[in-house]
Protein backbone atom coordinates (compact mmCIF):
# COMPACT_ATOMS: atom_id res chain seq x y z
CA UNK A 1 0.00 0.00 0.00
CA UNK A 2 1.13 3.49 -0.91
CA UNK A 3 0.37 6.78 0.84
CA UNK A 4 -2.79 7.67 2.76
CA UNK A 5 -5.50 9.70 1.04
CA UNK A 6 -8.59 11.04 2.82
CA UNK A 7 -11.84 11.70 0.97
CA UNK A 8 -14.37 13.92 2.72
CA UNK A 9 -17.90 13.04 1.62
CA UNK A 10 -19.42 9.74 0.55
CA UNK A 11 -21.65 10.88 -2.26
CA UNK A 12 -21.15 9.92 -5.90
CA UNK A 13 -17.98 12.06 -6.11
CA UNK A 14 -16.44 10.48 -3.04
CA UNK A 15 -17.40 6.94 -4.08
CA UNK A 16 -16.05 7.29 -7.58
CA UNK A 17 -12.79 8.86 -6.40
CA UNK A 18 -12.37 6.25 -3.67
CA UNK A 19 -12.70 3.45 -6.21
CA UNK A 20 -10.08 4.97 -8.49
CA UNK A 21 -7.61 5.92 -5.76
CA UNK A 22 -7.88 2.46 -4.28
CA UNK A 23 -7.17 0.92 -7.69
CA UNK A 24 -4.14 3.19 -7.99
CA UNK A 25 -2.89 1.60 -4.81
CA UNK A 26 -3.47 4.31 -2.23
CA UNK A 27 -4.61 3.64 1.32
CA UNK A 28 -7.94 5.45 0.97
CA UNK A 29 -10.14 6.68 3.84
CA UNK A 30 -13.67 7.73 2.98
CA UNK A 31 -15.57 9.70 5.64
CA UNK A 32 -19.30 10.27 5.45
CA UNK A 33 -21.28 12.27 8.02
CA UNK A 34 -24.47 10.26 7.41
CA UNK A 35 -25.13 6.64 8.27
CA UNK A 36 -25.39 5.70 4.59
CA UNK A 37 -23.28 6.22 1.49
CA UNK A 38 -24.58 7.78 -1.70
CA UNK A 39 -25.34 11.35 -0.66
CA UNK A 40 -28.22 13.15 -2.34
CA UNK A 41 -28.34 10.68 -5.20
CA UNK A 42 -29.25 7.88 -2.80
CA UNK A 43 -32.51 9.59 -1.84
CA UNK A 44 -33.43 10.11 -5.50
CA UNK A 45 -35.52 7.56 -7.37
CA UNK A 46 -34.42 7.66 -10.99
CA UNK A 47 -31.84 9.69 -12.88
CA UNK A 48 -32.30 11.38 -16.26
CA UNK A 49 -31.81 10.98 -19.13
CA UNK A 50 -31.73 7.16 -18.96
CA UNK A 51 -34.23 6.93 -16.10
CA UNK A 52 -31.68 4.72 -14.41
CA UNK A 53 -32.45 3.43 -10.95
CA UNK A 54 -30.30 5.16 -8.35
CA UNK A 55 -30.46 2.08 -6.18
CA UNK A 56 -28.57 0.06 -8.82
CA UNK A 57 -26.08 2.87 -9.45
CA UNK A 58 -25.25 3.37 -5.79
CA UNK A 59 -25.11 -0.35 -5.13
CA UNK A 60 -22.57 -0.79 -7.90
CA UNK A 61 -20.49 2.12 -6.66
CA UNK A 62 -20.52 0.89 -3.06
CA UNK A 63 -19.63 -2.64 -4.16
CA UNK A 64 -16.62 -1.21 -5.98
CA UNK A 65 -15.14 0.19 -2.75
CA UNK A 66 -15.45 -2.90 -0.58
CA UNK A 67 -11.77 -2.76 0.34
CA UNK A 68 -11.68 0.97 1.07
CA UNK A 69 -11.73 2.08 4.73
CA UNK A 70 -15.09 3.79 5.17
CA UNK A 71 -16.05 5.78 8.28
CA UNK A 72 -19.82 6.32 8.39
CA UNK A 73 -21.54 8.71 10.76
CA UNK A 74 -18.19 10.42 11.11
CA UNK A 75 -16.97 13.96 10.61
CA UNK A 76 -13.60 15.61 10.31
CA UNK A 77 -12.83 17.21 13.66
CA UNK A 78 -9.55 18.90 12.85
CA UNK A 79 -7.29 19.15 9.87
CA UNK A 80 -3.84 20.67 9.96
CA UNK A 81 -0.90 20.85 7.68
CA UNK A 82 1.96 18.57 8.91
CA UNK A 83 5.03 16.80 7.47
CA UNK A 84 4.26 17.47 3.82
CA UNK A 85 0.65 16.41 4.22
CA UNK A 86 -2.31 16.81 6.56
CA UNK A 87 -2.92 15.44 10.01
CA UNK A 88 -6.63 14.73 10.28
CA UNK A 89 -8.60 13.81 13.39
CA UNK A 90 -12.02 12.23 12.90
CA UNK A 91 -14.94 12.38 15.28
CA UNK A 92 -14.69 8.56 15.77
CA UNK A 93 -11.30 9.00 17.43
CA UNK A 94 -9.16 7.88 14.48
CA UNK A 95 -6.20 10.03 13.43
CA UNK A 96 -4.76 9.82 9.95
CA UNK A 97 -1.80 11.49 8.33
CA UNK A 98 -2.78 11.89 4.70
CA UNK A 99 -0.54 12.87 1.82
CA UNK A 100 -3.55 14.31 0.01
CA UNK A 101 -7.15 15.24 0.84
CA UNK A 102 -10.07 15.22 -1.54
CA UNK A 103 -12.98 17.45 -0.58
CA UNK A 104 -16.15 15.97 -2.06
CA UNK A 105 -18.59 17.52 0.35
CA UNK A 106 -21.23 18.28 -2.25
CA UNK A 107 -24.11 20.68 -1.80
CA UNK A 108 -27.11 21.24 0.42
CA UNK A 109 -30.64 21.40 -0.83
CA UNK A 110 -32.09 24.90 -0.46
CA UNK A 111 -34.40 25.10 2.54
CA UNK A 112 -37.73 25.60 0.81
CA UNK A 113 -39.39 26.98 3.96
CA UNK A 114 -37.21 30.06 3.55
CA UNK A 115 -39.39 31.13 0.64
CA UNK A 116 -42.35 31.52 2.95
CA UNK A 117 -44.59 32.83 0.18
CA UNK A 118 -44.67 29.31 -1.29
CA UNK A 119 -46.04 27.93 1.97
CA UNK A 120 -43.73 24.91 2.45
CA UNK A 121 -44.41 23.69 5.97
CA UNK A 122 -47.48 25.91 6.16
CA UNK A 123 -49.87 24.48 3.57
CA UNK A 124 -50.88 20.82 3.52
CA UNK A 125 -49.96 19.94 -0.06
CA UNK A 126 -46.69 21.72 -0.75
CA UNK A 127 -43.63 19.45 -1.08
CA UNK A 128 -40.12 19.67 -2.52
CA UNK A 129 -38.46 17.77 -5.35
CA UNK A 130 -36.60 15.68 -2.74
CA UNK A 131 -39.86 14.83 -0.94
CA UNK A 132 -41.35 13.66 -4.23
CA UNK A 133 -38.36 11.41 -5.01
CA UNK A 134 -38.52 9.94 -1.50
CA UNK A 135 -42.20 9.25 -2.05
CA UNK A 136 -41.45 7.59 -5.38
CA UNK A 137 -38.91 5.47 -3.54
CA UNK A 138 -41.75 4.15 -1.43
CA UNK A 139 -41.83 6.55 1.53
CA UNK A 140 -45.32 7.50 2.66
CA UNK A 141 -46.25 11.18 2.33
CA UNK A 142 -49.58 12.53 3.60
CA UNK A 143 -49.10 15.71 1.56
CA UNK A 144 -49.48 13.89 -1.75
CA UNK A 145 -53.18 13.32 -2.51
CA UNK A 146 -54.36 9.88 -3.55
CA UNK A 147 -55.59 11.10 -6.93
CA UNK A 148 -54.42 14.62 -7.69
CA UNK A 149 -56.22 16.35 -10.54
CA UNK A 150 -53.84 19.26 -10.89
CA UNK A 151 -50.15 19.29 -10.03
CA UNK A 152 -47.75 22.24 -10.22
CA UNK A 153 -43.97 22.39 -10.36
CA UNK A 154 -42.22 25.59 -9.38
CA UNK A 155 -38.78 25.93 -10.93
CA UNK A 156 -35.93 27.97 -9.44
CA UNK A 157 -36.86 27.79 -5.74
CA UNK A 158 -33.84 29.32 -4.07
CA UNK A 159 -31.92 29.45 -7.35
CA UNK A 160 -31.31 32.57 -9.44
CA UNK A 161 -32.67 34.49 -6.50
CA UNK A 162 -30.63 37.24 -4.82
CA UNK A 163 -33.29 37.46 -2.12
CA UNK A 164 -32.55 33.86 -1.20
CA UNK A 165 -28.83 34.61 -1.28
CA UNK A 166 -28.14 32.47 -4.37
CA UNK A 167 -27.66 34.08 -7.72
CA UNK A 168 -26.57 30.89 -9.48
CA UNK A 169 -28.63 28.52 -11.59
CA UNK A 170 -28.85 25.06 -10.02
CA UNK A 171 -28.51 23.49 -13.44
CA UNK A 172 -30.48 20.29 -12.84
CA UNK A 173 -33.86 21.56 -11.62
CA UNK A 174 -35.38 22.31 -15.03
CA UNK A 175 -34.59 18.82 -16.16
CA UNK A 176 -35.64 17.30 -12.83
CA UNK A 177 -38.96 19.13 -12.99
CA UNK A 178 -39.65 17.78 -16.47
CA UNK A 179 -38.62 14.29 -15.40
CA UNK A 180 -40.82 14.44 -12.31
CA UNK A 181 -43.70 15.96 -14.28
CA UNK A 182 -43.55 13.03 -16.69
CA UNK A 183 -43.34 10.55 -13.82
CA UNK A 184 -46.40 12.10 -12.16
CA UNK A 185 -48.30 12.14 -15.41
CA UNK A 186 -47.49 8.44 -15.83
CA UNK A 187 -48.88 7.72 -12.37
CA UNK A 188 -51.86 10.04 -12.69
CA UNK A 189 -52.75 10.20 -16.38
CA UNK A 190 -55.86 12.31 -15.69
CA UNK A 191 -54.00 15.02 -13.82
CA UNK A 192 -53.12 18.35 -15.41
CA UNK A 193 -49.47 19.12 -14.81
CA UNK A 194 -48.08 22.65 -14.89
CA UNK A 195 -44.45 23.71 -14.88
CA UNK A 196 -43.83 27.33 -13.85
CA UNK A 197 -40.47 28.36 -15.23
CA UNK A 198 -38.41 31.50 -15.78
CA UNK A 199 -36.18 30.04 -18.48
CA UNK A 200 -35.88 26.39 -19.44
CA UNK A 201 -32.22 25.48 -19.27
CA UNK A 202 -32.00 22.10 -20.95
CA UNK A 203 -28.41 21.88 -22.06
CA UNK A 204 -27.39 18.25 -21.61
CA UNK A 205 -27.50 15.17 -23.75
CA UNK A 206 -31.11 14.14 -24.47
CA UNK A 207 -32.52 16.88 -22.23
CA UNK A 208 -34.34 18.58 -25.08
CA UNK A 209 -35.81 15.21 -26.04
CA UNK A 210 -37.34 15.00 -22.59
CA UNK A 211 -38.86 18.43 -23.11
CA UNK A 212 -40.34 17.37 -26.42
CA UNK A 213 -41.73 14.20 -24.83
CA UNK A 214 -43.24 16.17 -22.01
CA UNK A 215 -45.01 18.44 -24.49
CA UNK A 216 -45.97 15.96 -27.20
CA UNK A 217 -46.57 12.72 -25.33
CA UNK A 218 -47.67 13.90 -21.92
CA UNK A 219 -49.35 17.25 -22.61
CA UNK A 220 -47.58 18.96 -19.75
CA UNK A 221 -48.35 22.69 -19.59
CA UNK A 222 -45.42 25.06 -19.47
CA UNK A 223 -46.15 28.51 -18.02
CA UNK A 224 -43.44 31.10 -18.41
CA UNK A 225 -43.66 33.00 -15.15
CA UNK A 226 -42.21 32.70 -11.70
CA UNK A 227 -44.75 31.86 -9.00
CA UNK A 228 -44.89 34.77 -6.59
CA UNK A 229 -47.29 33.55 -3.95
CA UNK A 230 -49.40 30.59 -2.96
CA UNK A 231 -52.52 30.59 -0.82
CA UNK A 232 -54.87 27.91 0.38
CA UNK A 233 -58.59 27.96 -0.34
CA UNK A 234 -61.23 26.96 2.19
CA UNK A 235 -61.64 23.51 0.57
CA UNK A 236 -57.92 22.79 0.86
CA UNK A 237 -56.83 23.57 -2.70
CA UNK A 238 -53.74 25.57 -3.43
CA UNK A 239 -54.19 28.79 -5.30
CA UNK A 240 -51.06 29.70 -7.24
CA UNK A 241 -50.39 33.16 -8.63
CA UNK A 242 -47.95 33.85 -11.43
CA UNK A 243 -47.73 36.12 -14.40
CA UNK A 244 -48.03 34.53 -17.80
CA UNK A 245 -45.22 36.65 -19.14
CA UNK A 246 -45.77 35.46 -22.70
CA UNK A 247 -49.19 37.04 -22.94
CA UNK A 248 -48.46 39.60 -20.22
CA UNK A 249 -51.38 38.89 -17.91
CA UNK A 250 -51.61 37.74 -14.30
CA UNK A 251 -52.54 34.08 -14.04
CA UNK A 252 -53.97 31.98 -11.25
CA UNK A 253 -54.70 28.29 -11.04
CA UNK A 254 -56.03 25.93 -8.40
CA UNK A 255 -53.90 22.88 -7.73
CA UNK A 256 -54.07 19.79 -5.56
CA UNK A 257 -50.37 19.70 -4.93
CA UNK A 258 -47.32 21.81 -5.58
CA UNK A 259 -43.74 20.63 -5.95
CA UNK A 260 -40.98 23.15 -5.23
CA UNK A 261 -37.78 22.58 -7.17
CA UNK A 262 -35.41 23.41 -4.34
CA UNK A 263 -32.02 24.31 -5.77
CA UNK A 264 -28.46 23.53 -4.78
CA UNK A 265 -26.71 25.76 -2.29
CA UNK A 266 -23.22 25.61 -0.85
CA UNK A 267 -22.69 23.11 1.94
CA UNK A 268 -22.14 25.17 5.07
CA UNK A 269 -21.20 22.17 7.19
CA UNK A 270 -17.67 22.19 5.81
CA UNK A 271 -17.03 25.74 7.10
CA UNK A 272 -14.74 24.46 9.95
CA UNK A 273 -12.64 22.49 7.45
CA UNK A 274 -12.46 25.50 5.17
CA UNK A 275 -11.20 27.66 8.03
CA UNK A 276 -8.68 25.16 9.38
CA UNK A 277 -7.24 24.24 5.99
CA UNK A 278 -7.33 27.91 4.90
CA UNK A 279 -9.38 27.21 1.80
CA UNK A 280 -11.04 29.97 -0.16
CA UNK A 281 -14.76 30.54 -0.65
CA UNK A 282 -15.88 31.92 -4.00
CA UNK A 283 -18.35 34.79 -4.45
CA UNK A 284 -21.17 32.27 -4.99
CA UNK A 285 -20.55 30.65 -1.60
CA UNK A 286 -19.07 27.46 -3.04
CA UNK A 287 -15.40 26.48 -2.68
CA UNK A 288 -13.06 28.44 -4.88
CA UNK A 289 -11.05 26.46 -7.43
CA UNK A 290 -7.66 27.56 -8.73
CA UNK A 291 -9.54 28.54 -11.86
CA UNK A 292 -12.90 27.59 -13.30
CA UNK A 293 -11.72 26.27 -16.67
CA UNK A 294 -8.79 23.89 -16.50
CA UNK A 295 -8.18 23.60 -12.73
CA UNK A 296 -11.63 23.20 -11.23
CA UNK A 297 -10.47 20.25 -9.10
CA UNK A 298 -7.52 22.14 -7.60
CA UNK A 299 -7.89 24.14 -4.43
CA UNK A 300 -4.78 26.28 -4.71
CA UNK A 301 -3.45 24.57 -1.56
CA UNK A 302 -0.90 21.79 -1.93
CA UNK A 303 -2.43 18.39 -1.46
CA UNK A 304 -6.08 19.48 -1.28
CA UNK A 305 -8.34 18.66 -4.21
CA UNK A 306 -12.01 19.14 -5.03
CA UNK A 307 -14.56 17.00 -6.80
CA UNK A 308 -18.23 17.47 -7.50
CA UNK A 309 -20.77 19.99 -6.29
CA UNK A 310 -18.57 21.45 -3.54
CA UNK A 311 -17.28 23.91 -6.15
CA UNK A 312 -20.62 24.67 -7.79
CA UNK A 313 -23.80 23.12 -9.08
CA UNK A 314 -23.12 19.97 -11.11
CA UNK A 315 -24.95 17.10 -12.75
CA UNK A 316 -24.18 13.49 -11.78
CA UNK A 317 -22.11 12.74 -14.95
CA UNK A 318 -20.05 15.90 -14.41
CA UNK A 319 -19.46 14.93 -10.81
CA UNK A 320 -18.34 11.40 -11.70
CA UNK A 321 -15.98 12.72 -14.37
CA UNK A 322 -14.49 15.23 -11.92
CA UNK A 323 -14.03 12.52 -9.31
CA UNK A 324 -11.98 10.42 -11.72
CA UNK A 325 -10.00 13.44 -12.79
CA UNK A 326 -9.33 14.30 -9.15
CA UNK A 327 -8.11 10.75 -8.42
CA UNK A 328 -5.65 11.06 -11.29
CA UNK A 329 -4.58 14.53 -10.16
CA UNK A 330 -3.91 13.20 -6.65
CA UNK A 331 -1.88 10.34 -8.13
CA UNK A 332 0.16 12.85 -10.15
CA UNK A 333 0.63 15.06 -7.12
CA UNK A 334 1.85 12.23 -4.87
CA UNK A 335 4.07 10.85 -7.62
CA UNK A 336 5.67 14.27 -7.82
CA UNK A 337 4.62 14.83 -11.42
Amino acid sequence: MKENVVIIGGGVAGLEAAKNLHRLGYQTFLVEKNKKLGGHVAIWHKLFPDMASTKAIIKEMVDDIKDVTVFLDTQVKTIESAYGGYQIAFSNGVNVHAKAVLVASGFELFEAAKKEEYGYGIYDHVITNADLEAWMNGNKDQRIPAAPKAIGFVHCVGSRDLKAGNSQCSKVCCMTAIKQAIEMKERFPNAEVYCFYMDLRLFGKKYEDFYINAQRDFGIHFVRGRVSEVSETIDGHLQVKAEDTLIGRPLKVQLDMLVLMAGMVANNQIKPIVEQAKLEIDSDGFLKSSDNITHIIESGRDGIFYAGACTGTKTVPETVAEARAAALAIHDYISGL
Partner: protein
Amino acid sequence: MIDFGFTLSKSSTVDLNKIDHSRYDQLVKLVPTARMCMNCGSCGATCTVSEYKGMSVRKVLYGIQRGEDVKAMLSSCMLCGKCTMVCPRGINTRNLILNLCKLYD
Protein backbone atom coordinates in the same frame (compact mmCIF):
# COMPACT_ATOMS: atom_id res chain seq x y z
CA MET B 1 -53.98 59.72 -53.21
CA ILE B 2 -55.12 56.93 -55.41
CA ASP B 3 -57.71 54.67 -53.82
CA PHE B 4 -56.53 51.07 -54.15
CA GLY B 5 -59.59 49.75 -52.34
CA PHE B 6 -57.62 48.78 -49.19
CA THR B 7 -55.65 50.57 -46.49
CA LEU B 8 -52.28 49.81 -45.04
CA SER B 9 -52.38 49.23 -41.29
CA LYS B 10 -49.60 50.57 -39.07
CA SER B 11 -46.69 48.17 -38.85
CA SER B 12 -46.77 46.12 -35.67
CA THR B 13 -43.03 45.54 -35.82
CA VAL B 14 -40.98 47.02 -33.02
CA ASP B 15 -38.27 48.91 -34.84
CA LEU B 16 -35.51 49.25 -32.27
CA ASN B 17 -33.68 51.73 -34.49
CA LYS B 18 -36.57 54.16 -34.37
CA ILE B 19 -37.56 53.91 -30.71
CA ASP B 20 -36.78 56.84 -28.45
CA HIS B 21 -34.54 55.45 -25.72
CA SER B 22 -34.12 58.70 -23.82
CA ARG B 23 -36.70 57.95 -21.14
CA TYR B 24 -35.21 54.54 -20.42
CA ASP B 25 -31.71 56.02 -20.36
CA GLN B 26 -32.84 58.64 -17.86
CA LEU B 27 -34.49 55.94 -15.78
CA VAL B 28 -31.46 53.68 -15.51
CA LYS B 29 -29.40 56.65 -14.47
CA LEU B 30 -31.79 57.30 -11.59
CA VAL B 31 -32.52 53.64 -10.79
CA PRO B 32 -29.53 51.54 -11.89
CA THR B 33 -31.14 48.27 -10.75
CA ALA B 34 -33.76 48.71 -13.50
CA ARG B 35 -31.29 47.09 -15.87
CA MET B 36 -31.35 43.82 -13.96
CA CYS B 37 -34.83 42.59 -14.91
CA MET B 38 -34.89 39.02 -16.25
CA ASN B 39 -38.57 39.02 -17.13
CA CYS B 40 -39.61 36.44 -14.55
CA GLY B 41 -42.97 38.09 -13.93
CA SER B 42 -42.92 37.84 -10.13
CA CYS B 43 -43.83 41.51 -9.80
CA GLY B 44 -46.89 41.27 -11.99
CA ALA B 45 -47.96 38.06 -10.28
CA THR B 46 -47.83 39.46 -6.78
CA CYS B 47 -49.07 42.94 -7.69
CA THR B 48 -52.06 44.11 -5.68
CA VAL B 49 -53.59 45.89 -8.64
CA SER B 50 -52.58 43.62 -11.52
CA GLU B 51 -55.92 41.89 -11.11
CA TYR B 52 -57.70 45.18 -11.82
CA LYS B 53 -55.42 47.02 -14.23
CA GLY B 54 -52.91 44.46 -15.49
CA MET B 55 -50.11 46.31 -13.78
CA SER B 56 -46.69 44.68 -13.92
CA VAL B 57 -43.37 46.39 -13.36
CA ARG B 58 -41.88 43.98 -15.87
CA LYS B 59 -44.32 45.18 -18.53
CA VAL B 60 -43.67 48.80 -17.63
CA LEU B 61 -39.94 48.26 -17.90
CA TYR B 62 -40.06 46.42 -21.22
CA GLY B 63 -42.84 48.67 -22.47
CA ILE B 64 -40.70 51.77 -22.26
CA GLN B 65 -37.82 49.95 -23.92
CA ARG B 66 -40.09 48.98 -26.81
CA GLY B 67 -41.78 52.33 -27.20
CA GLU B 68 -45.14 51.46 -25.65
CA ASP B 69 -47.33 53.74 -23.58
CA VAL B 70 -47.24 52.53 -20.00
CA LYS B 71 -48.91 55.51 -18.33
CA ALA B 72 -52.14 53.66 -17.54
CA MET B 73 -50.21 51.01 -15.64
CA LEU B 74 -48.17 53.60 -13.77
CA SER B 75 -51.36 55.43 -12.79
CA SER B 76 -52.71 52.38 -11.04
CA CYS B 77 -49.71 51.66 -8.78
CA MET B 78 -50.39 51.99 -5.04
CA LEU B 79 -46.65 51.70 -4.19
CA CYS B 80 -47.38 48.89 -1.72
CA GLY B 81 -43.93 47.41 -2.29
CA LYS B 82 -44.82 43.74 -2.77
CA CYS B 83 -43.00 43.69 -6.10
CA THR B 84 -39.86 45.02 -4.39
CA MET B 85 -40.17 42.20 -1.88
CA VAL B 86 -40.47 39.38 -4.41
CA CYS B 87 -38.09 40.56 -7.13
CA PRO B 88 -35.36 37.88 -7.34
CA ARG B 89 -32.94 40.40 -8.78
CA GLY B 90 -33.45 43.00 -6.05
CA ILE B 91 -34.72 45.72 -8.38
CA ASN B 92 -35.89 48.81 -6.52
CA THR B 93 -39.28 48.73 -8.20
CA ARG B 94 -40.95 51.43 -6.11
CA ASN B 95 -38.25 53.93 -6.84
CA LEU B 96 -38.46 52.92 -10.48
CA ILE B 97 -42.19 53.68 -10.62
CA LEU B 98 -41.90 56.94 -8.68
CA ASN B 99 -39.19 58.14 -11.01
CA LEU B 100 -41.11 57.12 -14.12
CA CYS B 101 -44.15 59.01 -12.80
CA LYS B 102 -41.92 62.09 -12.87
CA LEU B 103 -40.30 61.43 -16.24
CA TYR B 104 -43.52 61.52 -18.28
CA ASP B 105 -44.79 64.85 -19.45
